[in-house]
């Protein structure tokens, strides 16, 4: 009888030891995972900015500066015409296209006249000023001050024949698609504008 009574006790002892080892292994795994994913709960956003018109320069800059105000880690990767937003001289002269914009109070045939882009741009600039909306330049300076990483795609810098010195101070150059993807993979919000 005694051996019968001992048997369950031994089995119990062994399984407790097993469980202890399993719990310890799991604790270590959880601790490793925590370490790997610990980002203090900080959110992150990647925006790909591809357009260089006055109206399309605003959404990425407004979202980027606001996200930075939330304490997010923000990267805006500028490529193709999006580079003009970071180009110190061109950013101050971004144009609004009158053609193909159904919101314009004129037919396309009129909008296509050579001076119409300038008229539409002047109208927009006037409204921006009257409304107290920040200029593109102000939003860039603000974003950079707040720690937004404004990146200029190296391949398109060369394709467009730009010089790195023509961009705002603080703009990141020498980056490509892989850098953008690396940030996007970890980001909570990814946008292509």
């Amino acid at each position, binding site marked *: 009888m005694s051996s019968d009574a001992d048997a369950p006790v031994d089995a119990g002892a062994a399984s407790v030891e097993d469980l202890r080892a399993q719990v310890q292994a799991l604790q270590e795994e959880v601790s490793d995972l925590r370490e790997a994913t610990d980002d203090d709960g900080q959110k992150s956003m990647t925006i790909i900015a591809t357009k260089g018109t006055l109206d399309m320069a605003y959404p990425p800059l*407004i979202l980027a500066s*606001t996200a*930075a*105000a*939330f304490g997010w880690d923000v990267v805006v990767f500028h490529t193709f015409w999006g580079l003009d937003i970071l180009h110190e001289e061109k950013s101050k002269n971004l144009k609004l296209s009158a053609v193909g914009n159904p919101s314009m109070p004129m037919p396309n045939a009129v909008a296509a006249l050579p001076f119409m882009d300038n008229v539409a741009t002047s109208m927009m600039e006037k409204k921006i000023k009257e409304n107290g909306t*920040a200029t593109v330049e102000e939003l860039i300076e603000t974003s950079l001050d707040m720690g937004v990483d404004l990146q200029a795609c190296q391949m398109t810098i060369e394709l467009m024949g730009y010089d790195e010195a023509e961009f705002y101070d603080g703009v990141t150059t020498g980056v490509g698609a892989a850098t953008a993807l690396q940030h996007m993979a970890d980001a909570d919000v990814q946008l292509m504008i």
Partner: protein
Amino acid sequence: MSTYEPTETLDVKGLSCPMPVVKTRGAVDDLESGEILQVVATDSGSMSDLKGWADSTDGVSMLEQEEAEEDGDAVFRHFIQKE
């Protein structure tokens, strides 16, 4: 009138999105824990935006928001405390 006594006041009258939120962030960063910032804006979107910002940002809380009229214009006051 609000019952809160602000430590600092940030005037963002005449500025529109995203500047009220962006400038509030900077002003809050300069506060000590427990101090209260009053933000005065004319942008009606600031009611929703600053509430949303305060709710999803660690270390700040929106104590009160009020709409008033000043010289015939709507003015929005926000009282934000740094925790």
